[in-house]
């Protein structure tokens, strides 16, 4: 039994770190350090840099343009991005629709979309949730009626992250309202967001930022070659997609970055430093839990339900770190400063994002399977309750 990384893995880590240091645009890096959100152009430029080494798609197989990473390499790669900090490759592209296209796409669809998806020539949005369908996703109501070689799609999607940057949206539609079970009448469609009938409306979140959107679909004519898998079999595709979503989600490196910021602000404040140490202790051990799950993935490609532990505890620690950062900043964090304020290089300039980020990070225990949902999964799959 051995927890150490191999010499090759250590070398890989240094390679990734050097690549980030040399290739990440300083303004993008500074925004990440300060907890701001980079612009579309900055994210695109960075992903294209990564893609020069096939690193934009760390989980894709080599046969489809991936780098052929082992699970450990994937972990190291993401950890370095998180700690740098640098933007992750756009997850809608890389973790969601990419693997779906590889698993379920026709050759023509793969040809049309895969390379462009990796290179962020197409930016994807995820069109799953609806106002009445959140954790109960299968109760969605957006309808798709077949009309010749098109589907005519109408409905209302919500919480589309970065959809205002997006070119296309992968989405779930109800193609058979008569199906005996609600999961059986759903199809998985790709929709060009420039089509007539598509309206994107921003949703401002409590951090006063525009990151999510509503998408209204009004009789949008979607060509049938944009169907993924079989008609009315979209639920299987969805389950496949969601099982991919959960891996590596502890985002330990992001929490480490927050702890660095806490320590900068804490100075000699023993109480804050003790609380930071308490978080670090748990985080260090969660890293071992992460490695244990990675070790399992080397042995079996089946989705590991223990991943829910990473999500639960990872979010708990990240939220706690953001709360401690707020406490360390004190009342100076109360000043409202927007992301378009000048980039600084001193501590004071960092304060502007602390309160908004504390607030928006509350969403981390809601999306991607809420903490309550994760506990339910663990109780059921691991304890048989």
């Amino acid at each position, binding site marked *: 039994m051995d927890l150490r990384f191999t010499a090759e893995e250590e070398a890989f880590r240094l390679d990734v770190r050097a690549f980030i240091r040399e290739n990440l645009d300083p303004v993008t890096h500074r925004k990440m350090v300060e907890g701001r959100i980079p612009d579309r152009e900055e994210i695109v430029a960075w992903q294209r840099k990564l893609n020069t080494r096939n690193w934009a798609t760390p989980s894709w197989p080599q046969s489809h343009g991936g780098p052929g990473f082992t699970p450990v390499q994937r972990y190291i790669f993401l950890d370095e991005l998180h700690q740098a900090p640098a933007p992750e490759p756009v997850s809608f592209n890389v973790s969601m629709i990419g693997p779906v296209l590889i698993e379920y796409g026709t050759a023509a669809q793969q040809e049309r979309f895969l390379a462009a998806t990796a290179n962020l020539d197409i930016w994807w949005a995820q069109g799953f*949730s609806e106002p*009445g369908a*959140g*954790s*109960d996703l299968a*109760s969605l109501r957006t309808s798709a009626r077949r009309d010749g070689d098109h589907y005519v799609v109408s409905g209302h999607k*919500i*919480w589309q992250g970065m959809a205002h940057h997006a070119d296309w949206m992968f989405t779930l539609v109800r193609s058979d309202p008569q199906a005996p079970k609600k999961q059986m009448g759903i199809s998985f469609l790709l929709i060009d967001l420039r089509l007539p009938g598509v309206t994107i409306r921003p*949703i*401002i*979140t*409590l951090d*006063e930022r525009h990151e999510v959107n509503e998408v209204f679909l009004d009789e949008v004519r979607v060509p049938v070659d944009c169907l993924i898998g079989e008609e009315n079999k979209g639920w299987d595709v969805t389950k496949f997609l969601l099982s991919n979503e959960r891996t590596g989600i502890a985002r330990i490196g992001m929490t480490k970055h927050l702890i660095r910021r806490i320590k900068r602000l804490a100075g000699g404040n023993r*109480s804050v430093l003790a609380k930071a140490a308490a978080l670090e202790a748990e985080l260090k051990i969660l890293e071992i839990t992460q490695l244990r799950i990675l070790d399992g993935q080397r042995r079996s490609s089946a989705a590991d339900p223990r991943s829910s532990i990473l999500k639960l505890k990872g979010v708990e620690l990240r939220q706690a770190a953001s709360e401690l950062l*707020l*406490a360390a900043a*004190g*009342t*100076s*964090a*109360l*000043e*409202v*400063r927007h992301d378009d304020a000048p980039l600084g290089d001193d501590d004071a300039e960092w304060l502007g994002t602390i*309160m*908004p980020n*504390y*607030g*928006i990070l*509350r*969403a981390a*225990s*809601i*999306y991607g399977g*809420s*903490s*309550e949902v994760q*506990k339910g999964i663990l109780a059921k799959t691991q304890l048989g309750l």
Partner: protein
Amino acid sequence: MDLELSDDQRMLKESVDRLVAERYDLDQRRGYMSQPAGWSAEMWSAFADLGLTMLPFSEEQGGLGLGGVETMIVGEAFGRALVIEPYLPSVVLAGTAISHAGTPDQVAEWLPPIMSGETICALATEAAVTAERTGETWILDGAAKVVLGGDTAGQLVIPAGDDLFVLPADAAGLQRRGYRVHGGGGAADLTLIGVKLPEKNRLSGNGGCTRALEAGIAWLAAEAVGAMQAALDLTVEYLKTREQFGKPIAVNQSLQHRAAEMLVEVEQARSAAMYAALLCDEHDDHVRATGYAAVKAVIGKAGRFVAQNSVQLHGGIGVSEEHVISHYFRRLTAIGMLLGDTESQITRLAELGGFTTAAPHFD
């Protein structure tokens, strides 16, 4: 012991509740925030017309002579409506400081414009300012940060040494940088370089500052109760109406229990606000000091729990700026941080020796 409101207090509550119900919904509030000052001069007049700006001051000083309970009633309503006008800075903080620290002449000069609502005054609660005397003139140097209401105040009260100084916002040598604060309202950071003031602008006795901070804690506690109760009510309503899997999500026992835990915290906060309201008449400094530390510590912790969980139980909609829950979240977060967070209040309470000694109850 009697914890019911009097008839007069009930009437006050009804009129304040009615005013904010009619004129302070979320859309109206957005309108007020978009005005040049960041708040509504019209609402400010409405509060003054109702007598709220003169409420806590004694009749000798020209006020209504009402007490902590009446202020609590106003604070709770303002917390529920998320009122952004500078009542806390001007009336509660600066007003209390002047009314406690000033001589009758000084009070007669500085308090009436606050009570009428004509002047917005702000108290620097986080200041590092020195005052040196040269003849009849005082020279102030230093800085103050996060002076609530300092962005739009016409007048400032700044502690230096054991004294408080009243100065006009346009005093020579005073620089201010105003900004909005998260959760509503504005503040300013101040720099003072050789600001000259006459002796008459010096209120001697920093006790006024302590009294003002205590009144501020009582106010924040009341505001927190208004916001927490509203957040809890909305959350319970949401659990009952939001359906998933064909049933209201209220069927989930884990969510029921969370809501019950929120209720416990709201009731604790209500007790804290009530205690704070009644403590202002206490003469023993130590009893007040320990009491207000406990109040603010509990308010900070309870408010954070309710804020976080009302967002969590609302799911996605809870983090949307369009939904009022996100505003309660931000205001409760700010309330927790202002005038000493839970951590610092606990440290203070420990330094004061807490409420019980190591000695036995009797010997």
